[in-house]
């Protein structure tokens, strides 16, 4: 009798067979894979366009086999808007870090959401500027040490970290807003569910959708990957609670 081997795990078609530039233990690569899986499961690879702006996000086009823009720092929601308004039939998403989405690009983020733009944002919040080498981000926690808050961030000096999901959930145009994390297998499964939901909200013409993904950055946090995972659980999640803030 011939043994039938059933394939239970394979690389998504949308994910290119290449090594990523991400550091060991980084969450970016996991999220790139989840996006690729979601695109494949919806069968929309040929009508999906991504926008990746400046930061660790920028090289996403090396990993996803779809049409993509590289955008200026913070401007991805505006670029995605321009694309989507010309081609309402396309599925358009942005892939942005915290410096991009919560600092330099807040105007574009807030107004794309307020307009109910039929786009999806995958927002990677790792509480630090990764690519530039670990400077303070708008989402850096109070007390967190970075290369530009070497004594730990203080509210007196640098103000408070921004909760983008809560902020955007107040806008009528925002239809689906969720915060997830990728620090454990269970959370990764939940993260995929949220990303899938966000894409479906867009495809159903229900408005703007955004998934904030808490992601570990061992290199710039100066931690081992195991410590970084623990730090997400113990430090980040209490300040950035995991939940669906808004759904249609």
């Amino acid at each position, binding site marked *: 009798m011939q043994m039938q081997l059933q394939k239970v795990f394979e690389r998504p078609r949308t994910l290119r067979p290449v090594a990523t530039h991400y550091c060991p233990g980084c969450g970016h690569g996991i999220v790139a894979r989840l996006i690729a899986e979601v695109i494949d499961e919806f069968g929309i690879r040929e*009508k999906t366009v991504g926008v990746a702006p400046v930061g660790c996000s920028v090289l996403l*086009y090396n990993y996803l086999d779809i*049409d993509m*823009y590289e*955008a200026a720092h913070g*401007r991805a929601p505006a670029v995605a808007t*321009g694309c989507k*308004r010309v081609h309402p039939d396309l599925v358009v998403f942005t892939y942005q870090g915290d410096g991009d989405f919560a600092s330099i690009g807040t105007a574009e983020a807030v107004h794309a959401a307020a307009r109910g733009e039929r786009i999806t944002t995958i927002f990677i919040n790792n509480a630090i500027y990764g690519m530039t080498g670990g400077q303070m981000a708008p989402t850096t926690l109070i007390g967190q040490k970075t290369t530009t808050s070497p004594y730990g961030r203080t509210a007196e000096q640098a103000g408070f970290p921004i909760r983008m999901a809560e902020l955007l959930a107040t806008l009528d145009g925002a239809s689906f807003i969720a915060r997830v994390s990728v620090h454990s297998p269970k959370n990764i499964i939940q993260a995929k569910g949220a990303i899938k939901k966000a894409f479906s909200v867009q495809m159903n013409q229900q408005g703007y959708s955004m998934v904030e993904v808490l992601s570990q950055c061992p290199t710039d946090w100066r931690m081992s990957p195991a410590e970084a995972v623990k730090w997400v659980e113990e430090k980040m999640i209490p300040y950035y609670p995991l939940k669906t803030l808004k759904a249609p």
Partner: protein
Amino acid sequence: MEKTFMTGNEAIAEAAIQAGCRHFFGYPITPQSEIPEYMSKRLPKMGGVYLQAESEVAAINMLFGAAGTGARVMTSSSSPGISLMQEGISYIAAARLPCVIVNIMRGGPGLGGIQPSQSDYFQATKGGGHGDYHLIVLAPHTLQEAVYLTMNSFDLADKYRNPVMILGDGYMGQMMEPVSFPKLTPRHTPKGWALTGAKDRPANLVKTLYLDPEALEKHNLVINQTIQKIKKEEVQVETYHTDDAEIIIAAYGTVARIAKTAIEVLRNKGLKVGLIRPITVFPFPCKIFEELADRRFLVVEMSFGQMLEDVQLSLGRKASVHFYGRTGVVPSYDEIIVEVEKLVK
């Protein structure tokens, strides 16, 4: 041909529509707000898109996104707003995306004023944003010419994969004149690079980042070769009574139009005065200046001397170049006459 009485802003907007532009992203600023207003009225009724952005920064990035799909797209603004767009314009030029940007110039620097000005010449013609690039810059001097140049600007942008700027001023934006719109069949340029979904072809990428130094230089060389070709093939210039002219005025846009009136008066007085009027201020018509370098020149601008530098460069150091400029104020033809007469005395 039937003529319509309209403002320059409206004429430019209508010309863009006639040229096949169906997508417009903008932000209000005086003295160009009639362009977005006109587009918001017309485009949705013809299946197009008008979208008011949250800022000029967003508007130019929406243009980047829309141009990246290969659509004919335009934005418009005035000086302070154009400054805000410079980041996006640099990215658009780097990504080699065709699009049209209208600058109806007002006084600066800073908030400046809302009166006509030509003080964005350096910004428009020398790049404007960071990096090695140039826009093709078209400077009409009448509303009818604004119509022709705008209609042609989309073909030019497509042909070279380079952004085009229509450089007008507040005077031109606000004044009304009868204009006609010639029947135009927009040239169809294949855009295999456009982002429309990777169906039956490899994925496309609109990018501007080249971390490998050699790759960046290679990319910049492509842009530069395009610019050199534009310099060779796309120069437009008008000469007016230059054959026998002893004194040649160099001016563009509204000022050139005023200069023409001054030249008529001066010629009636027996003075041999002519005009060189760059229609493309980039590429600059160096050659005609070289050819006439033995004459005396008076450069007149609504600035304190920006095109002046290109004229001086074209003529060489030995040439006789004088300058008259107003900034914040439109020079009258009387003032130009006085300046020319000073040179004769």
